[in-house]
């Protein structure tokens, strides 16, 4: 197991270089000159533009730019964004916010998704099951920005239970409403996944055996059915953590959360290569680590799985 984890960590190195290279290339290929855009539609003084290009290495060919970026990276220098702020400082500010948001969303979708899914699965075909199925279908069908605006207006403006936007320090409490919106669609998926899984496992041989042995209903459900039903759900949740962090652009925009999504969006618009690459690289790392965690959890949930 230890060796397996070490190997997985080593695999991260080529993935990291591949991802940064690809992203850097994509940013480099963006049409339009970011320095030009800095001036807007006002006159561009070539002397000033040349100076700025040199400052951000934009006058170099692609490979040179990329290697300069890597060279700086080795010394933990991520460069500056166009407003002269160190990118490292930006990362330190935005990632905690989005991590808080993603964790809250993950907790929400996991806890409620599994509870509702288990109850619906155990009562297959009953009224509760039907209601939950229809409701989750509606949630999946509605685009997230509609859900976001409606929740913001109803909960934030009309009822006044929460501030309509987050802004500022973006503490845990401030992020509850956006986290619910962010996790809502995944919540519906977790619910449906859990329900199906439970229904499948209810008819498995080992469940019949366990019941035949005279185990209590509660023990059968919790230890035998639930644990085995969790494998697909855990896979989904693990992969979802990365998706939540990278996919929070819409939610962060609606609720004005100063996190990764918003910053990434702004940086893409401004063509800030180093900032985009740095943010995406960290996201890639998060994604890989989350997947690793999922694989380790497998072994724990299903002892038949052994990593060598």
């Amino acid at each position: 197991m230890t060796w397996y984890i070490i190997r997985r960590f080593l695999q991260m190195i080529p993935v990291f270089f591949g991802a940064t290279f690809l992203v850097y290339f994509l940013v480099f290929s963006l049409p339009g000159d970011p320095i030009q855009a800095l001036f807007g539609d006002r006159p561009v003084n070539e002397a000033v533009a040349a100076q700025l290009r040199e400052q951000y290495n934009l006058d170099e060919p692609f490979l040179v730019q990329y290697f300069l970026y890597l060279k700086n990276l080795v010394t933990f220098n991520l460069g500056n964004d166009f407003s002269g702020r160190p990118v490292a400082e930006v990362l330190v500010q935005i990632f905690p916010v989005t991590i808080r948001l993603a964790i809250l969303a993950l907790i929400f979708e996991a806890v409620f998704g599994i509870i509702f899914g288990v109850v619906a699965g155990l009562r297959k075909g009953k009224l509760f099951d039907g209601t939950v199925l229809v409701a989750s279908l509606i949630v999946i069908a509605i685009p997230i920005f509609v859900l976001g605006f409606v929740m913001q207006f109803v909960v934030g403006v009309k009822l006044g239970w929460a501030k309509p936007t987050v802004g500022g320090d973006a503490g845990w409490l401030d992020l509850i409403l956006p986290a619910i919106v962010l996790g809502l669609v995944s919540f519906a998926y977790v619910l449906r996944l859990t329900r199906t899984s439970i229904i499948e496992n209810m008819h498995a041989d080992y469940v019949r055996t366990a019941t035949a042995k005279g185990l209590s209903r509660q023990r059968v459900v919790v230890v035998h059915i639930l644990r085995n039903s969790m494998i697909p759900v855990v896979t989904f949740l693990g992969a979802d953590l990365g998706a939540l962090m990278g996919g929070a652009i819409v939610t962060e925009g609606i609720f004005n959360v100063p996190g990764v999504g918003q910053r990434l969006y702004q940086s893409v618009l401004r063509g800030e290569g180093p900032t985009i690459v740095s943010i995406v690289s960290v996201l890639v790392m998060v994604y890989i680590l989350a997947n690793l965690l999922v694989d380790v959890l497998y072994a724990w949930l299903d002892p038949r799985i052994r990593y060598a």
Partner: protein
Amino acid sequence: MRFARTSKLIGLAAAAVLALSACGGGGGTEGGEGNAAAVITANSTEPQNPLIPTNTNEVGGGRVVDLLFEGLISYDAEGKPVNEMAESIETEDSQNYTIKLKADQTFTNGEPVTANSFVDAWNYGAAAENAQLGQYFFESIAGYDEVSAEGSTKNEMSGLKVVDDLTFTAELAQPESDWPLRLGYTAFSPLPEVAFEDMEAFGNNPVGNGPYMLADEGAWQHDIQIALTPNPDYQGTRTPKNGGITFKFYSGFEAAYQDLLANNLDLLDTIPPSSLANFKTDLGEGRWLEKAYAGNQTITIPQYLDEWTGEAGELRRKAISMAINRDEITEVIFSGGRQPATEFTAPVLDGYDESIPGSEVLEYNPEEAKKLWAQADEIDPWGDRTFTIASNADGGHKEWIEAVVNGLKNDLGIDAQFEPYATFAEVRTKITAKDMTGAFRTGWQADYPSLYNFLGPLFGTGAGSNDGEYSSEAFDKKLNEGLNAETPEEGNAIFNEAQEILLQDLPAIPLWYQVRQVGWSENVENVDTAWNGVPIYHNITGK
């Protein structure tokens, strides 16, 4: 003010948005004394550059710098210049100016404001080695060419001379009668000595001489907000009537609008397009206003394209202009929130004339348009070419461009298309490279309240923002005459004569003037906007 990129964004928001007949005010508040201790929260965006006056060219930083610094003059709500740091600005030939400063003015760190504070700051802004985005503001001053040249190590303009602590002289490269009018723009602000020690650090914690100052070290919380408190030693005309302004940064106007509805934000300076139709009922009487400001929207047809040269080109440009139904588009697409243009500047400016001879070319007249187009076809057949209008697709421009294009198809019977670009940077790069293959969207927000600002930089031969490469000797001559006029009134009359030439040549087709909608919370009053559409922050009071 001339805030390029973001003003485009706002322009688009405004473009996609504006409601109401552009001219009228809405329900401006005329409250009483109000609560002078209240801290007002207002929407803004993260400044894109350190807060250095000469390096700030977008709204997010511009509105903060404008409150932190006080220049020689400021503009009142109507755009009239008022002396601030300047005791007097005198000239006899519109080329050599003597500027005397008021005594005993200080920066908030106690340093006195002297002639050197201005001269050093302007030299810093103009010198190529400092790469300031607002560099071109100093282009009129003698010696600018030397310090601004690529690779130049000279950093003092020969035209600026310090006479004594409170006096300096400025020599321009050529006479310009409206030069003093420009001095209220933030790029001309003075800087304290401490700034030159470490400009980047200064930009994060600027020390100014304006009506407000940073609440404390680190009052600028990046991507979150920036907090300003009144400067207790301020002696100018823009005395704060509130306990401070906190600019909260929003990535879009929608989120800010929700905050405004919940009284979680006191002032929103742009109503988002999605709420233009209903913001008046959402907010209720006395919580919004709608007012025209010094900005316009135009379509530029580049002069470097063969099919637009000569007599045929001129006839075609007129035909296109007359085939655009400005009244209908402003009514239907902008819910009346734009004012159809009748010339090239803006109605809030001194000297504006709505009936310049030749302006009938900006009126909708499909029969005449068809006739002109047919005449052009006799000279040079259009064939099956397509007329395109290029613009970035975000920002709400798509709707009106498609309306214009459809009108052209119907009235002229030609093939016309919207040519969308993904980002502003992309279309801007092509425009600057003179690489456009058709017409493109342009617009202008005034830097300073003057007709010339809408004409010289845009249509003067070789001017910085002359994207269409227009060049007319007669027009240049008129501009020069106007600049050399003895009084601003005389100058304005000449500038309007210059506009007659533009109406004849139509290097750009004026469409409409911009209108600004502002909303505020239940907690504040005395909200108004100035000539440039910017809220007058220092006058807002709490309830």
